Structures are given as C-alpha cells and as structure tokens.
C-alpha cells in the first residue's frame, strides 16, 4: 500500500536522478576504462606493490593513533563541561573541512624542520618528520581523526547515561564504568568511526604529498602512486584507483545500516 505522501514531486525525482548520474558516472567511467585483465600484472610492478603495502600499513597505524587519541577526546567533549568546549570541538573537526593541502602546510609549520615543535626537535636530535613514513601516518591521522571523534561523540551523547550511574552506585570505579559499560554500549559508534577514519586515511593525498613528499616505498601511498602513474602508465593508475574504489565500497557495505540509515 502506498501512502500519498510517498509520491515524490516530479522536479525532485529529476534532480535526484541527475545527482545519481553525477555521482555514478565517474565511477562507471573508471570501472569501464580500467583494464581488468591487467590486474594481476599490477601486482608484479614493484612500485605499485610498494604503494599498496605502504598504504595498508600507514592507514592502519593512523587508525590506531586516531583511535587511541580520538576516543578520549570524544569522551571529554561528550561528558565534561569546561570553558571553551565548543571552541575545542570546532577546532577538533576543522581538518574535516580544511583543504588537505592547507592541512599539509599547517603540519609543516608545526612538525617541519623549522616548525614550532619540529624545529627544536630537529635541532636537538637531527631528525624530522617530513619525508618519512611516520610523517605519512601523522598526516593521515591529522586528516582522518575528526571522523572518529565526531562519530564516537555522537554515540556517547545518545547513550543512556543511567547505565553508567547504576554501575557506579554498584561500586564500579571510573575505569571499570568506562571499560565495562560505556565502551561496550558505544562500541557500534566506535566501529563506525574507525571504518570511516580508516577509509579517509587510506584515501589521503593532499596533506601527505605536502607534508611527507613522494618517495616510492617510503612516502608514496596509493593515491600518490595513482597521481604519478597517471602520466607514465594511465592503465596502472586506473587499476590502482579501482582497488581503492573497491575498498571504499567494501567499507560502505560494512557500514550499511549504521551510516546509510537503512533498516
């Protein structure tokens, strides 16, 4: 039985159709142009393989860093009242809306060889983060962590805090409440936030190339390899793009029902 309200006004359907074309046509172009038969050859190319390996390791490390730091930040933002909380929240999600290249420049000014923190460290130890794999991880975590913070904070805000109160009155300490009650309840939010954060870290380009540079095997992740290969071997670039696309689709499918709101 269809309710009358379910029928969309005509104009809306047309605009929605255009939106679908706009979103799907580029992906269709990629899928059609990619030489699927060469997919196995791609794995024989050392630079492509190195980029895949580097992307997997750095994005997982960035995810770890973002989770270890981001969950506590989300908890503070959701549960503690302190002056300037709104400002801190806004700043914490700033990298989500900041152009990634600007993020890369900002990272250079903070952690670069002449940066606020990077300068003294370089002077004292002779090492610096730009052009290193650690720099890649930092750039990815910087750009991706806000996704975790936002998702987990929303989960914490919507949970029934009486559960925590009950646990506390029954004698549970603060850490026990957090570990046995709060985290299990918001686990789905944490998982969703982690999936988004990982996908964002995996696709990171602008901040990485600006802050960490482009060296095969050390800082050249898959998105950077796609960008370089586009000029020398477009087919390999399409294939690498396709791999990234497949991973993104897999993440979205895993998140189905959580983000997409289907029941």
């Amino acid at each position, binding site marked *: 039985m269809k309710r009358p309200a379910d029928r969309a006004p005509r104009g809306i359907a047309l605009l929605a159709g255009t939106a679908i074309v706009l979103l799907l046509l580029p992906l269709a172009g990629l899928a059609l142009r990619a030489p699927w038969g060469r997919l196995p050859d791609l794995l024989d190319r050392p630079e492509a393989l190195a980029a895949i390996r580097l992307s997997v390791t750095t994005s997982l490390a960035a995810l770890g860093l973002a989770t270890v730091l981001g969950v506590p930040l989300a908890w503070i933002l959701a549960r503690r009242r302190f002056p300037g909380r709104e400002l801190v929240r806004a700043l914490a999600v700033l990298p989500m809306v900041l152009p990634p290249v600007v993020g890369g420049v900002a990272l250079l000014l903070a952690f670069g060889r002449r940066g606020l923190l990077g300068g003294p460290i370089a002077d004292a130890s002779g090492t610096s983060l730009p052009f290193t794999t650690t720099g890649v991880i930092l750039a990815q975590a910087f750009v991706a962590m806000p996704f975790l913070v936002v998702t987990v904070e929303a989960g914490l805000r919507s949970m029934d805090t009486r559960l925590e109160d009950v646990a506390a009155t029954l004698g549970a300490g603060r850490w026990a409440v957090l570990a046995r009650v709060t985290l299990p309840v918001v686990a789905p939010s944490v998982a969703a936030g982690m999936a988004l954060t990982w996908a964002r870290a995996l696709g990171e380009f602008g901040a990485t190339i600006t802050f960490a*540079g482009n*060296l095969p095997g050390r800082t050249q992740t898959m998105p950077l390899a796609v960008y*370089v290969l586009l000029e020398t071997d477009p087919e390999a670039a399409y294939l690498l793009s396709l791999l990234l696309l497949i991973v993104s689709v897999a993440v979205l499918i895993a998140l189905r029902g959580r983000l997409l709101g289907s029941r």
Partner: protein
Amino acid sequence: MMRLSAGILVLAVTALAACGSEGAPDGERTGGELLVFAAASLARPFAQMADLFEERHEDVDVVLHVAGSQRLAAQILEGAPAGVFASADEPQMQRVAEAGSTTGAAVTFARNQLAVVVAPGNPHRLTGPSDLARADITVVLADPSVPVGAYTRQMLQRADVEVSPASFELDTRAVLSRVALGEADAGVVYTSDLHDRDDVTAVAVPDAVDVTAEYQIAVVGSAGPSAASFVELVRSPEGAAILERAGFRAP
C-alpha cells in the same frame, strides 16, 4: 516505478550531454577565450605574455593553465580544450603531436639550464652536483616523469653521481618550495626558477655536465586564429625579451 527512474536517468544524461556540448570550447570560442597550457617553469613570463596579448586583442580572454608539462600533455591527450601548449621538453610535445592533437609543427622558443638550489648563504657549502650525493644533506629532486626531473637525471648521469632523494616532487616549483621552506637542503631546478629569488641561492652546474632544456610551443586542436597569434607573440622579439628577463635563453 522502475521504468520511470530509467526514464529520468536518460533525461538527466541527455541534459548533461547537452551542457557538455555548449560548455566545452576548443581552446577559444565562448566569448573569445584562449586556453594556454604552459609548463610550470613558464608561469611568470607567460602571465606577462597573457597580459600583453589581452592588451592587444581586447576581445580575447587568455586563461593560463600552469602545471608540469607531463600533466598538461596527459590532460590534452584526455581531451582538455587547450588552444596552445608550451612544453618544457620535446618528449611531452612529441606525445601530444603523435596523437594528432597539435596543428602545425612545434617550434623551440626558449632554452633553460639547470641549477642546484640551496638555502641563502649555502650553509652546507655545496660546490656542485657531485655534492648532492652527500649523506649529511636532505635532497629533493623532481620526478623523472616531469621534464625537469628527466633533465636532472641526465645531468646526474653525466656527472656520474648517485643521489638518493628524500622525495620526488611533481613539478619544479615544488622542489623550489621544499628548499625555500627549509625542509630540504638542496634540490635541482631550472636557472630561470631562481631569477629574482632571494630566499634561495644557486650553486652553479659546470657546463660539462649541464643539460639544456628545450621549450617547445604549438597550437593545439581546432583552436582559432588567436592561438596562432599567441604563439607568434611568444616567438616575437617582445616575447623573447620577456623570456630573457625571466631568466630564459633564446633558442
């Protein structure tokens, strides 16, 4: 319901296609717009060329698109509506010409040399390209897929130097900014890049190992007469003077 959405999809596609056929001019057309694709190292002189050209042809609006020549070539081969292509090397122009995208022959209009770029005052006391192999400095080079990177590779081969750079940048300006920002101690760029810069210094490359960059220009696609006149301006004595003031040499 299924049939309706399919109909909408077809409608939307045709609407988009219609926009496309109006909105994508070949180099010029809509309101006399001339799209000039120029190598990254040509950014400054070509901005002056564009101003001069617009002064003389008030009906033409020159739009300058500056990037690594290899990227520009790839974009043209994918159908970018360039009217003029100015490449920093012959191979990239060749790629475009072989695909039948150029109109008429490409001509060499300028030359450039390489320079080792370091911080002002040369704090690490580099004396030439062979010092780029030193383990105590951070070196950044252009990727060999970029013209300046290919020239750099030739130069280092001639000098018989093995360099392990910290990064392969994607155009000459990126190499320059790494050194200017102090993230790298040395890099290799064009001598013209260092013209008028006081935040970096050049270490001379000996003539015996230096490589001469050859800049070529051509009209692309079905661009109209303004593309040809732009190429004429670049090759005129006035154009040569602009290039010379920007640190380039005559062909």
